[in-house]
């Protein structure tokens, strides 16, 4: 029997009824073939409205319901739930959007009504062929993989581990801690970054539910939500952490000195080294790139002096497989490459620093033990210029986005500078001040008012060296005059970029990146910690620039999202997935090639869909030359019939 369909036309107060003659829509539809019942009502989404739908489904024995109302993004689930409570399969209920796509954008009532009728009729045609589908059930591995051991990754790991979920935390550097461990003090409270982070680092490393892989990289992730398999490459450290006593003998004898990443090149380190004293795991690492060679052993001095015999040149890279149910990407950021900032002399003049280098100067554990000294001559800078938006908010030349944290840390830098150099003068070039966080505005104001930092609104055009001074040419747009400052030091609030491995990681996780290279969230407002790939979540700056409190909040958010998946006995996956008509399939494999989710494979010369991986995008359907594959409930026939209604009848 053909389906008995009911049509429910919503007035949405006057939102729809103001432009669309809803009575006419209901009347026309009631005469449409196969329509058992059609009615209009003032607010379909209200309880009485929903109850009416439920009652009519039962009374008229409907097996299809079309609600002509607002966008399906809003009330589709409302009405599907209502239909379900009346015994219908949720896929027997569809929304015809006659508000956002009709009543709200048209004025001519007659034409809008005509269009609303067409839209609704089209959905009626679609629903005729809708299948009753059941969600696909997927088992769940109750473990999570977190990629990145900065504050975002650490916080997510702790929140998850404390929720009794096993965590695999992967960090590519020898130690966890990320950029936060490099910072001196944090705005707006000026508490010491290391002091608040190291307890968390210790906690995560000791937590029985956390498996920590440092000096490791995720190489491959296959599978799907609830059931990922990750391959993790653990690079050889050539030092056995269990034996290493942190005596530092090896480092002492090591003849190789390379720039120290932790201090952003402001100091050097040896080929065998510990990144910083509180590093976790607490062990040395032999940097094979810098070492003269372990195979054959070219130097071996470290091995000679190591009493506990912790040095082991035979260590090999190891690939570890881990099964997890969810993945959190917390890969943080890199600073914008200095190559791009030639106009400010960054990279050319040693006294032009970036924000992180300045942090190291400020840090008690830093190269100058917390004294602000010029790298070139170890003199205390008396005039210092901070340049905000270095590489940010510059769509023509650099990055179009705002890096969000620079206003605040520049204010902090200027303030701390004043704390160190009381007689010094700090200038800040800014476009405008963005201090949206709690206590931030006050913090910036204090910098300006209490510390006497001179804020200049305008851009710096050029920085060059002249007679041992850094000449800063800029413009004060408020005063409308050109400015020249002869400074001892320039600090650039460099833009932050997605970390260097982000692109590769995005590919292997099959998650999207936005146009700036940050990981794309599923919805900018409503799903900010989810990626578009089910089971992959985002935390911290990997998703977009943000400060520590926001990062920690998002990390917590990501953790709860993971929990909400992993706490279920099994996952439900949308059944709107592709299906192969095997009698038409010739096994050409073009669908396999185009599938963004690797959900299709060939078996015995026919395509086969992994329904759990399939997201129902339908790219395969448009690629298949034989119409042998299509997405359930949005088939070629449904499209064709909709076209037929939209274009066929000449009313």
């Amino acid at each position, binding site marked *: 029997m053909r389906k008995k369909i009911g049509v429910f036309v919503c007035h949405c107060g006057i939102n729809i009824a103001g432009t669309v003659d809803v009575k006419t829509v209901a009347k026309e539809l009631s005469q449409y073939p196969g329509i058992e019942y059609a009615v209009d009502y003032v607010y379909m989404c209200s309880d009485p409205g929903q109850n009416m739908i439920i009652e009519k489904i039962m009374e008229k024995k409907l097996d299809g319901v079309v609600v002509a109302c607002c*966008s*399906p*993004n809003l009330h589709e689930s409302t009405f599907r739930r209502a239909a379900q409570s009346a015994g219908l399969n949720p896929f027997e209920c569809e929304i015809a*959007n006659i*508000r*956002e*796509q*009709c009543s*709200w*954008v*048209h*004025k*001519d009532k007659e*034409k*809008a009504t*005509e*269009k609303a009728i*067409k*839209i609704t009729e*089209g959905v009626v045609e679609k629903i005729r062929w809708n299948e009753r589908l059941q969600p696909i059930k997927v088992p769940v591995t109750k473990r999570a993989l977190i990629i990145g051991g900065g504050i975002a990754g650490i916080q997510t790991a702790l929140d998850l581990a404390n929720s009794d979920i096993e965590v695999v935390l992967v960090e590519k550097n020898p130690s966890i801690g990320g950029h936060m461990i490099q910072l001196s003090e944090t705005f707006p409270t000026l508490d010491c970054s290391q002091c608040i982070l190291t307890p968390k680092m210790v906690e995560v490393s000791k937590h029985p539910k956390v498996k920590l892989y440092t000096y490791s990289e995720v190489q491959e992730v296959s599978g799907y939500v609830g059931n990922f398999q990750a391959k993790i490459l653990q690079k050889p450290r050539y030092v056995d952490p269990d034996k290493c006593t942190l005596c530092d003998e090896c480092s002492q004898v090591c003849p190789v000195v390379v720039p120290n990443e932790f201090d952003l090149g402001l100091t050097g380190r040896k080929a065998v080294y510990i990144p910083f004293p509180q590093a976790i795991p607490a062990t040395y690492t032999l940097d094979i790139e810098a070492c003269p060679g372990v195979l054959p052993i070219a130097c071996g001095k470290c091995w000679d002096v190591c009493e506990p015999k912790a040095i082991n040149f035979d260590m090999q890279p190891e690939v570890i497989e881990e099964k997890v149910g969810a993945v959190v990407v917390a890969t943080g950021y890199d600073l914008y490459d200095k190559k791009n900032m030639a106009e400010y002399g960054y990279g050319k003049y040693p006294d032009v620093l970036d924000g992180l280098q300045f942090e190291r100067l400020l840090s008690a554990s830093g190269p100058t033990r917390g004294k602000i000294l010029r790298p070139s001559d170890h003199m205390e800078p008396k005039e210092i210029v901070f340049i905000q938006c270095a590489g940010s908010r510059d769509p023509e030349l650099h990055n179009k986005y705002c890096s969000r944290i620079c206003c605040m840390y520049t204010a902090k830098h200027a303030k701390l500078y004043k704390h160190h150099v009381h007689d010094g003068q700090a200038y800040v070039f800014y476009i405008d001040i963005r201090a949206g966080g709690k206590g931030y505005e006050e913090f910036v104001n204090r910098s300006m008012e209490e510390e006497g930092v001179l804020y200049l609104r305008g851009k710096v055009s050029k920085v060059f060296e002249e007679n041992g001074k850094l000449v800063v040419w800029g413009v004060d747009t408020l005063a409308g005059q050109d400015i020249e400052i002869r400074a001892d030091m320039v600090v650039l609030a460099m833009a932050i970029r997605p970390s260097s491995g982000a692109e590769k990681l995005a590919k292997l996780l*099959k*998650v*999207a*990146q*936005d*146009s700036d290279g940050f990981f*794309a969230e599923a919805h*900018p407002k409503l799903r900010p910690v989810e990626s*578009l790939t089910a089971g992959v979540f985002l935390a911290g700056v990997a998703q977009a620039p943000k400060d520590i409190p926001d990062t920690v909040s998002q990390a917590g958010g990501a953790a709860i999202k993971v929990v909400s998946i992993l706490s279920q006995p099994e996952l439900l996956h949308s059944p*709107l997935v592709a299906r192969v008509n095997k009698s038409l399939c010739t096994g050409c494999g073009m669908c396999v090639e*185009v599938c*963004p*989710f690797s959900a299709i494979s060939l078996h015995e010369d026919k395509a086969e869909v992994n329904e759990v991986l399939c*997201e*129902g*995008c*339908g*790219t395969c*359907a*448009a*690629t298949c030359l034989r*119409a042998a594959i299509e*997405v359930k409930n*949005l088939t*070629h026939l449904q*499209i*064709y019939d*909709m*076209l*037929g209604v*939209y*274009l*066929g009848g000449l009313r």
Partner: protein
Amino acid sequence: MNKDHEPRIVAFLCKWCSSAGSDMAGVSRLEYPPNVIPITVMCSGSVSPIYILSAFNLGADGVLVSGCHPGDCHYIKGNMYARRRMALLKELLPYLGLEPERFQMSWVSAAEGVKFTQIIKDFVAQLKPLGPQTYLRRSL
């Protein structure tokens, strides 16, 4: 030629960007001509060329395919495949003498209600002078 002809347009809108963008136009109460009937598909990558040809065959005066901007695709890269397919169709149709204005592709993000509105306005405006599409239209 009938200059007063009201063009009939079918717009294939991807669910995540362009359909959401058209919703945004609605939310913002932007006005555009009622000539376009949207068909929401999951992804512009799912729009088969035969849909477009069929739409013309069934009497459409214009067909719009709209997807997410490159890099923004909800399905990572469905729109990239669409771009290729539609590039060929865009070349082929005028080669056969169908006015190139009748088939259009656009990128409209979920936030671009204004852009969506402008596209529909422009599309309708460029179709109007062409009159009805009779070339591929089935007349029994």
